[in-house]
């Protein structure tokens, strides 16, 4: 009976949370600093930025695309937000401009990928470099300081015991998960990842669906970047360095497949938490950040291996 029970488990759903809680358990045993309210609150706040990027990345990856421009976009959005806020002295204006900037970057990616049908990797490699360049050009490579202090509330404030970024990230998690799981749009994103031609023949405007996925990513990246800019109350031209890879890693760890068709928002959220906890736990244990990079790399390869294995088994 026990064996039956084991066989009945859907590892695809259980595997990631199980790994996550095992990891938490190990860190708890290894250090008494890990399982404290203060530390966990801190981790939650840190990963909330990555969460925004990863939600968007989930849509894009599930639809069969990729967006490696989000990291550089964060840098550029940070500069735009900071610049606009300083020049106007108006906090909401700066925030809006930042989110708009992100949405436009997403729109540009989406148009190039869906209308002109360029490969997403190449397109976003291009926009990544462009965003990086513009971000550095914006203030000649210097950070933008002197933002209104009130702006810092978004990144550093609390509602009750919970950091505001965590609350925003959670709300957007619910919205994103809802879209992917319960709406026709989400269904089309998954279907396109599975067989784009079939979706097109069903009379669905696949180009529009893909365009929206990139726009969503840009929009969410905009929000993440604004929150992060608020946290440091300055525009910083290298703010998002390497974040695209973390976001992709989060989606893949969470069960999303590069090439499309599979992935859930809950999985991605666990992927994000996994990355956050690993970094935090290893920090607490005094493991250098260089070694952390290696650990995360190994985890990515492991989850992709598992994914490939699973696909093979399904195809039998």
């Amino acid at each position: 009976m026990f064996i039956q029970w084991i066989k009945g488990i859907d590892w695809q759903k259980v595997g990631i949370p199980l790994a996550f809680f095992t990891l938490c358990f190990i860190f708890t045993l290894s250090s008494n600093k890990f399982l404290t309210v203060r530390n966990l609150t801190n981790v939650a706040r840190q990963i909330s930025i990555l969460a925004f990027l990863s939600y968007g990345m989930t849509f894009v990856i599930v639809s069969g695309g990729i967006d490696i421009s989000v990291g550089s976009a964060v840098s550029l959005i940070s500069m735009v937000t900071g610049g606009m806020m300083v020049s106007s002295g108006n906090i909401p204006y700066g925030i809006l401009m930042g989110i708009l900037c992100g949405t436009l970057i997403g729109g540009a990616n989406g148009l190039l990928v869906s209308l002109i049908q360029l490969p997403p990797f190449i397109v976003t490699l291009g926009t990544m470099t462009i965003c990086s360049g513009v971000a550095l050009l914006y203030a000649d490579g210097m950070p933008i300081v002197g933002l209104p202090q009130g702006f810092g509330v978004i990144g550093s404030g609390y509602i009750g015991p919970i950091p505001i970024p965590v609350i925003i990230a959670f709300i957007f998690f619910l919205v994103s998960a809802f879209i992917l799981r319960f709406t026709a749009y989400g269904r089309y994103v998954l279907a396109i990842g599975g067989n784009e031609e079939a979706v097109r023949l069903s009379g669905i405007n696949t180009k529009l669906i893909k365009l929206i996925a990139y726009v969503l990513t840009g929009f969410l990246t905009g929000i993440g970047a604004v929150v992060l800019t608020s946290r440091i109350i300055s525009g910083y031209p290298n703010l998002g360095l390497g974040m695209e890879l973390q976001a992709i890693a989060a989606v893949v760890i969470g069960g999303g497949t590069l090439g499309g068709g599979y992935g859930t928002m809950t999985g991605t959220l666990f992927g994000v938490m996994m990355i956050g906890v690993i970094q935090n736990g290893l920090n607490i244990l005094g493991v250098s950040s260089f070694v952390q990079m290696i650990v995360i790399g190994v985890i990515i390869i492991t989850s992709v291996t598992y994914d490939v294995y699973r696909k093979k088994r399904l195809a039998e």
Partner: protein
Amino acid sequence: MKVALTPIIEMKEISKHFGGVQALREVSIDLYEGEILGIVGHNGAGKSTLIKILSGAYTADTGKIYFRGKEVEIRTPKDSKALGIETIYQHLALADNLNVPANVFLGREIKNRVGILDERSMEKETRQMLERLKLKISSLKVRVLKLSGGQRQCIAISRAVYFNAKILIMDEPTAALGVQETERVHDLMQHLKNEGIGIILISHDLHDVFKLSDRIAVMKNGVLVGIKKINETTKDEVLAMIILGKQEKPLKQN
């Protein structure tokens, strides 16, 4: 079933050329309710061009199309679908990563008032549809990936039919399938025919065409060689028509 006097679809003197190549020269075919019309011929005979004009992928240079006796214009795939003409493509037109109801309702999902997908209704309707078409699929919740090629092709076909197709165009529907799987698709075609749906079947397999069709249209080099009733012809005769492109007096000496 074959008593209807006007054909459900009639293509009259259709011509089409691509650059200097005359792909079709005044080809006329018709199809009745509950009939399977096989179209055979070598590659480049114009079969695909002909059905692509019917499905709206191409437009004819000259010629007319009548739907139930009334002249219609088919300029886009949408026009064709609006008339109840559905095309089943050679490759499987399903998203393998989704389950059966999701595929059946792809592009016409049932939603509740706030726009949330109504999975339960879609599953229920899918079950009813499969029952009506006598298709057995153990679990609707599995990804289509886990089903056999024949089951998938059947789902693609029934999906087209379920949404009020009157005419099915099938281009090599079983080319990628094994014997048993082919049998499954054939059963479904027979069933659909009995329900009064007209089917145009393009196939290289003369055996299949003879088994399923009521009439056979033979094409060669963009010209209709002839249309034969299945019980008034033989495989040899049809083969001769395919090869010689002539109707009278085929190779009968040996």
